[in-house]
């Protein structure tokens, strides 16, 4: 939990008060503190603030001598405890907006107060030896009950809820894992472990507790909790920047944070600039903490500056706030860095910027709106930062979650390839990505084709990954293997999956309709997108082909179209073949192209016959259907109609004779059955060629 040290504490010196403020945000700053001494605000320069405080913060009564404020990271709740709870406790959370208020007996100063998950049981620590419990489950005993720590002479440093009924006590001599039995108003010890503890840290997202052990405090022991079990993970040592002068605690909990980044748990260590070494500034060292195996140092984030820092993790980005310059920088460990064989060194992705200026909404009834909103002091020394994305101003009584704004990033990250790599990893990226695509296709910021190709490839790479996951999932489900593999989950479609219809609707169709770009460029872009899809072996939807054809037709580029079709760049489909047929009047070869396509589809034989008949190519149609062996089931009437319309008597005669022969072969009689509705044609035949021309039934 790295946070701004309250008061003017030196960065190396672990503030004496800090240890007391273990997981709770003790209201250290008292009545508001001194804040900044009217410093200039360098962060505002050039705009483009890509970090912002959430618009709807949690407002609570600010800390003062009678009101103590606590923050629970697991439930993201703020507790305002007035006079030890006697005059009321108000609990407000970021997620659930309805505050919970209750009263409890004042049994001494509250050191720590937290709800179990789901607000079932309240735990309150008032002494160093015990924790009190109060049920919040309807119809359960309402009387408080107490649990003392088992280890003799141990002091409780704090406690963490790991589920709705499981709790861990951390003492200076070890940890104790309990199950709470609310009905019996008692606790059952599940497991305990003796170990010397300097301080501890809890990451609720991954249910891992990290203990600082040894004299220097730089050996960290993680424990993992899951449904009644406790697992000891392998311990590891944090490399300290310089050999400590004495054997005193050298690793402060303020310089350590735990967070899940891209689904993996990391321990973040803020290594301050040491005057003895010649490093250029402080850095954040990331230790990857896998569930199995040992913890490894994997990433180094270069801060290139010194001073007071605080860490947040937002949307898998590591945000480092710098109080001296009132700016923040972000790091993305998925972006390419400098790899030295064991660790990857990252520079910040974007230039340092201040958090977006924030106006504190004026409290009071809605009628009193004349008062201007007060700008909030950012990077105030009374700010306290929690993982992953919480910023609390104890002096003003606000709790925010930190957010990353993607729009400003677009103008700050000029390398479009890198921009896409960055955006594709973000949660709310879809619309921004699509607008980047639109932007790079239109003036004044039109990108070159190679840039456009790079962007398309990156998008389709992500798209393909999802399609593959989806496909293998469906396959497993269909083959019925899903039952044997309960871990199998349907792949999540993140916003980074930008499919063809997204591109078509938001980017490509708009772009082609605008017609501001030269048609050469328009076609090049469409072909580039199709190329990229093909490269990732993604089946191209026919509306993209239609867009290509429409554009080519608009500019009379029929020969180009012809060549594309010749090389099967526009894949065969019935809709496409029909579209081509409709082009025949303006481009006659489209007819041939369309027929070829129908032939290749091999499921469009009826269509081929229709096309040929519409051209009065009755014989051709008949030969075709005979060639594929379908001539016994075709409708005689249809062919005779077409033959009659062709106004060619010989043709009519031939067709008529063909069907007479068919009748003879199938039924032993050349005449048509009434069901065939050919009476009119028989009459016509007699009229033209005479009755005697009709085929005689062969008699045996």
């Amino acid at each position, binding site marked *: 939990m790295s946070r701004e040290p309250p008061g003017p504490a030196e960065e190396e010196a672990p503030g004496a008060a800090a240890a007391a403020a273990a997981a709770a945000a003790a209201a250290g700053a008292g009545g508001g503190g001194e804040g900044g001494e009217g410093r200039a605000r360098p962060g505002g320069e050039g705009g483009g603030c890509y970090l912002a405080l959430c618009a709807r913060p949690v407002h609570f009564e600010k800390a003062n001598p009678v009101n103590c404020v606590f923050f629970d990271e697991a439930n993201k709740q703020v507790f305002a405890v007035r006079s030890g709870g006697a005059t009321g406790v108000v609990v407000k959370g970021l997620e659930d907006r309805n505050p919970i208020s209750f009263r409890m007996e004042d049994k001494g100063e509250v050191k720590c107060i937290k709800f179990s998950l789901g607000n079932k049981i309240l735990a309150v620590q008032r002494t160093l030896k015990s924790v009190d419990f109060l049920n919040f489950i309807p119809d359960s005993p309402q009387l408080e009950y107490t649990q003392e720590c088992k280890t003799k002479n141990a002091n409780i440093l704090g406690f963490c809820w790991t589920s709705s009924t499981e709790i861990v006590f951390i003492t200076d001599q070890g940890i104790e894992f309990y199950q709470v039995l609310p009905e019996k108003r008692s606790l059952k010890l599940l497991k305990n472990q003796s170990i010397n503890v300097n301080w501890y840290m809890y990451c609720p997202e991954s249910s891992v507790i990290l203990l600082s052990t040894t004299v220097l405090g730089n050996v960290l022991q993680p424990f993992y909790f899951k449904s009644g079990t406790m697992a000891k993970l392998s311990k590891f040592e944090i490399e300290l920047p310089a050999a400590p002068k004495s054997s005193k605690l050298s690793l402060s909990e303020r310089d350590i944070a735990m967070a899940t980044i891209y689904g993996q748990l990391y321990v973040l260590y803020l290594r301050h600039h040491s005057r003895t070494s010649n490093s250029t500034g402080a850095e954040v060292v990331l230790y990857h903490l896998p569930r199995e195996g040992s913890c490894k140092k994997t990433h180094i984030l270069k801060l290139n500056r010194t001073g007071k820092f605080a860490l947040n993790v937002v949307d898998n980005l590591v945000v480092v706030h710098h109080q001296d310059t009132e700016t923040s920088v972000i790091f993305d460990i998925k972006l390419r860095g400098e790899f030295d064989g064991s660790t990857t060194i990252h520079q910040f992705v974007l230039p340092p910027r201040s958090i977006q200026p924030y106006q504190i909404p004026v409290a009071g009834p809605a009628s009193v709106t004349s008062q201007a909103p007060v700008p909030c002091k950012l990077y105030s020394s009374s700010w306290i930062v929690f993982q992953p994305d919480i910023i609390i101003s104890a002096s003003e009584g606000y709790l925010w979650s930190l957010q990353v704004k993607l729009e400003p990033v677009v103008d700050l990250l000029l390398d479009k390839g890198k921009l896409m790599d960055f955006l594709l990893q973000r949660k709310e990226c879809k619309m921004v990505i699509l607008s980047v695509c639109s932007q790079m296709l239109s003036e004044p910021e039109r990108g070159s084709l190679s840039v456009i*190709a790079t962007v398309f490839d990156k998008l389709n790479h992500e798209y393909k990954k999802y399609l593959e996951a989806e496909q293998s999932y469906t396959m497993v489900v269909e083959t019925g293997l899903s039952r044997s593999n309960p871990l199998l989950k349907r792949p999540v479609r993140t916003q980074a999956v930008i499919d063809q219809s997204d591109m078509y609707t938001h980017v490509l169709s708009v772009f082609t309709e605008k017609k501001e770009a030269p048609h050469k460029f328009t076609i090049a872009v469409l*072909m580039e997108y199709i190329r990229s899809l093909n490269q990732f072996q993604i089946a191209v939807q026919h509306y993209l082909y239609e867009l290509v054809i429409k554009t080519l037709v608009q500019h009379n580029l029929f*020969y180009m179209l012809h060549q594309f079709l010749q090389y099967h760049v526009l894949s065969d489909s019935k809709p496409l073949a029909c579209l081509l047929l409709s082009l025949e009047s303006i481009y006659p070869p489209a007819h*041939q192209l369309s027929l070829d396509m129908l032939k290749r589809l091999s499921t469009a034989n009826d269509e*081929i016959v229709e096309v040929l008949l519409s051209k009065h190519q009755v014989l051709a149609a008949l030969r075709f259907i005979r060639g594929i062996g379908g001539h016994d089931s075709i409708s005689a009437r249809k062919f005779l109609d077409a033959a009659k319309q062709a106004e060619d008597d010989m043709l009519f005669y031939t067709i008529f004779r063909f069907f007479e022969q068919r009748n003879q072969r199938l039924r032993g009689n050349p005449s048509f059955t009434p069901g065939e509705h050919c009476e009119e044609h028989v009459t016509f035949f007699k009229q033209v060629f005479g009755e005697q021309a009709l085929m005689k039934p062969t008699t045996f």
Partner: protein
Amino acid sequence: EEKKILFYHPNEVEKNEKIRNVGLCEAIVQFTRTFSPTKPAKSLHTQKNRQFFHEPEENFWMVMVVRNPIIEKHKDGKPVYEYQEEELLDKVYSSVLQQCYSMYKLFNGTFLRAMEDGGVKGLKERLEKFFHRYLQTLHLQSCDLLDVFCGISFFPLDKMTYLKIQSFINRMEESLSIVKYTAFLYNDQLIWSGLEQDDMRILYKYLTTSLFPRHMEPELAGRDSPIRAEMPGNLQHYGRFLTGPLNLNDPETKCRFPKIFVNTDDTYEELHLIVYKAMSAAVCFMIDASIPPTLEFCRRLDSIVGPQLTVLASDICEQYNINKRIAGAEKEPQFKFIYFNHMNLAEKSTIHMRKTPSVSLASVHPDLMKILGDINSDFSRVDEDEEIIVKAMSDYWVVGKKSDQRELYVILNQKNVNLIEVNEEVKKLCATQFNNIFFLD
């Protein structure tokens, strides 16, 4: 009268005879016009010669006289020369004449324009300059059905590689913004044309029968090694100019490119033709003639196109070999055939050997080729689809099929086969070679 003659070959012929001959042609054309005002005579058959008339532009006539083949016979011990009046095919030679004009037009523009620009004298000079050289390259003896089609052979390619080429062309046209049109060929076969079909047709003919063969010989002889000593820092590549500068490092080198004229019916564009080649891949960049390409431009083109084209060429080669291996599994039956599609001018021939610098050689007897020509003439007379099967001498069968705009000619040589068996064989060929097009049985 003499002023009517813009060009006469051979020039040595005495003036009066020239006038006489031209006058005769004029008279014939005028005379026949009275019978058929819209379709004047195309050819005149005489015992010794055959004359072909062509009016490519209004009031401009081109006439070509071809001598009938002679057979030396011995009669009563004395040699007698007999002219074979029916050996020559009208369609073949009238096509040759039309191509003469098309080729002239490609490099010189229309007659009318030349006359408007430089008067009759200018036109005469142009004609003299062009035809003097061009006529020597005509090999009239070996003209056959392929000259009638004047088709384009397309390089077979998978979709992905084709899209890569598209992408390459688009990027090149973007980087070299003065490029107006691009064409891409591999192994002397067309893959992409930015030009319209008719212009591409004649440009293709020029490239494959004149420009490429000319550069082929030194290559084969090992001179002009394509791996050049590169300027330091430059990527190694195999690209080089087939037209334009020979040595980019020589600051004195001339950047002159042939001029071509396209879309002469409407926009009438004059372009510089830059042909650039890396290994078997050749790209034609056409830029507006008003912008003379500088040495600097050529160097830039070389540095941009060279490396990428080299990579692309090896990609295509690799892909081509893979495809060939797949196709090789189903052993191509040894059919001799010619295929032509009027719609996209695609032609394919297994009868002709690979084109040598000057001639394309047919591997079958001229008599068979003549039958093919005859069938073609029959086809061109009617619009409908049809099929002609001819039994030729010594167990040869010739089959001609016409379906929509496509024509297929097959030559079979099997002993003791009947009509039905021949028909079956052709069906087999269609099923293996043309299964992806709509070709009526």
